[in-house]
């Protein structure tokens, strides 16, 4: 299998999961699609090196999370990165799910790094060390970001206290 074939196989197998993580990171479907697209383009540039290492997942994950923070900074400065808006409007899959709506709104109130930490730790089920590797920071930073993120969720979304209570705090110890 040459580089292009293996890349296409990887994308076909992982794009759904990448899209979900991107959606949780961005809180917006279009931005999530942008993030996935940018991440895959970046990965394609270095695919030979990435795939030669065996498991491309750590590189892809790290690329996506750093792109997410980078995109967020650029959007914050008012730059619209999307050259071609999607032709077809996508239905909002969260409609009608009360808890999902609350979680989504709560995530939106977090800083990008805090959101990233929560997604890595509680959605992708990574250890603190793996999360630190994906974010390019230290384990202690992951710990503090997780603690702050959960505290912020408790403050701004008391209705989620049940989700992020003591048990969640305990999850930080993994």
């Amino acid at each position, binding site marked *: 299998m040459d580089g*292009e074939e293996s*890349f*296409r196989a990887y*994308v*076909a197998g992982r*794009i*759904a999961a*990448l*899209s*979900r*993580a*991107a*959606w*949780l990171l961005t809180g917006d*479907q279009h931005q*999530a*699609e942008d993030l*996935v*697209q940018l991440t*895959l*383009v*970046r*990965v*394609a*540039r*270095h*695919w030979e090196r990435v795939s030669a290492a065996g498991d491309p997942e750590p590189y892809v994950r790290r690329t996506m999370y750093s792109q997410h923070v980078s995109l967020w900074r650029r959007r914050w400065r008012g730059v619209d990165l999307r050259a*071609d808006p*999607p032709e*077809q409007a*996508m239905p*909002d*899959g*969260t409609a009608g*799910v009360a*808890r*999902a709506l609350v*979680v*989504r709104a709560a*995530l939106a109130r977090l800083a990008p790094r805090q959101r990233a930490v*929560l*997604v890595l730790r*509680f*959605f992708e*089920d990574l250890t603190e060390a793996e999360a630190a590797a994906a974010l390019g920071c230290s384990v202690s930073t992951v710990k503090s970001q997780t603690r702050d993120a959960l505290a912020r969720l408790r403050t701004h979304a008391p209705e989620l206290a*049940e*989700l*992020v*209570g003591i*048990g*969640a705090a*305990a*999850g930080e110890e993994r």
Partner: protein
Amino acid sequence: MSEELRTALRELGERMPATRLGSDPWMVGRRQRWRAAWRTGVAGLVAVLICALGVPAILGGSGAGMPPAATGAGVPERISLPWMWQATVEQDPPGSASVLFGGGGLGLRGSDFVDHEGKIAVVGRGGDYRMLLYGGSESTAGEDVQLSPDGRYVAHVPGTDWLTVTDLTDGSDRAYLGPSNSDCCATPVSWSRDGASLLVVEYDPEATRYDASGWGRDASRLTLLEVTTGATRILVDDLGDRWSLRTASLAAFSPDGSRIAATVGDRLSLLDRDGRMLWSRDLGPQRKLAGNGAFTADGSRIAVADLEGCLSGCDSAALAARTWTVTWLDAATGRDAGGPTLAPVRGQALRALGWRLGIDLVAVRYEAEPGNGMPEGTGWNDTGYWESGRVQLIALRPDGTTEVLLDPPDEVWSLDVARDLLEAGSFGAPATEPRPFPARPIILLVVVPPVLLITVVVGVPLLWRRHRRRRSAPPMADPPWPV
């Protein structure tokens, strides 16, 4: 509960359909990779060129105004051909020179289309090689490009003035007008020993007369130029056709500069600086003034080169078989005089430059160009650019032996040496190779074609491969929707 948060996040995430990729990330990524590689390559090339051209030009520009090396300065034991793109004197002055030389090959002759036909190499006393460039015609060191006795100035005709003197320490030019304020046309013949005067042959191209064969004849005059004031004085009003002159034996200053030996046809005359003739005698067709260094160091005798061999209509073999023997004239009377018996010199021509330590006659020996015989109906100059083969700098000792002082590469066809070094016997100084930088911008002609060639040879197949891949690549399959 962390598990409940996990569940909530999963539920939320699963509401996101798989991304519909707007463009094929593989193709976009590879394109970006290529662009990055190109940008890196171009940036690297630019950096290399900047380093190659700019930095040495800045760092290597220290030759300007450089004084002669305090020790070891002298005529180098060996000279090498300059780079085709060697920097000019104007671009980076080499300081006083030890040697000038011209000839063939890319370093010493170019095409006016992209370079200069006439190229004279200047070897500075610090070892730097720099160029004097002349468009439109080939140039000959020691004849139409003359180094001053102290090696600091070069008298030459760059093409726009009657005569120009270039200061090798700063690259500046001083242009001179001829008698009647003419700005054309002259050829330097000899510097006076003190560097204050120049003998010049001038001619008027507007008075060209054409003979039956269509060969143009330009009447020429021998003129004295005072370098400091620019004043000129005609010494000999009719030297004959400029293009039939044998430039190596035209004229010579006496060591004190007060007398001038001048050749008109077969006659040799001694003139004062006002052009008054002190004596004149017929040398015959086989005897020539030995060169602009013909006066002995004490000024008492004049060296004459006697030719044994072919004089006219010679083929290359006959020219190569010529032998020159130095004999002597009394400078006071012009009569034949006694003197040391120097070894005969075999070659097409011999041109005396001066005296090493007042004892040995230093001269340039010209070999014939193989296959290059005298043409009929046109001018012939034994030491001219087109007539000469290789040259050697030799010393003829009074004991009858000959020493080769400098044996340049075969592509060197003309040579001039600073008189002060020659008279001091400063030969055999350590040689330096020409450094490729600083360079003239023409170096791009050398660098760019190989880069383009490599680009084409490597790039076209890669582009073609990419093109074929793009055409044959299946479109990125849409993932299940929604997931």
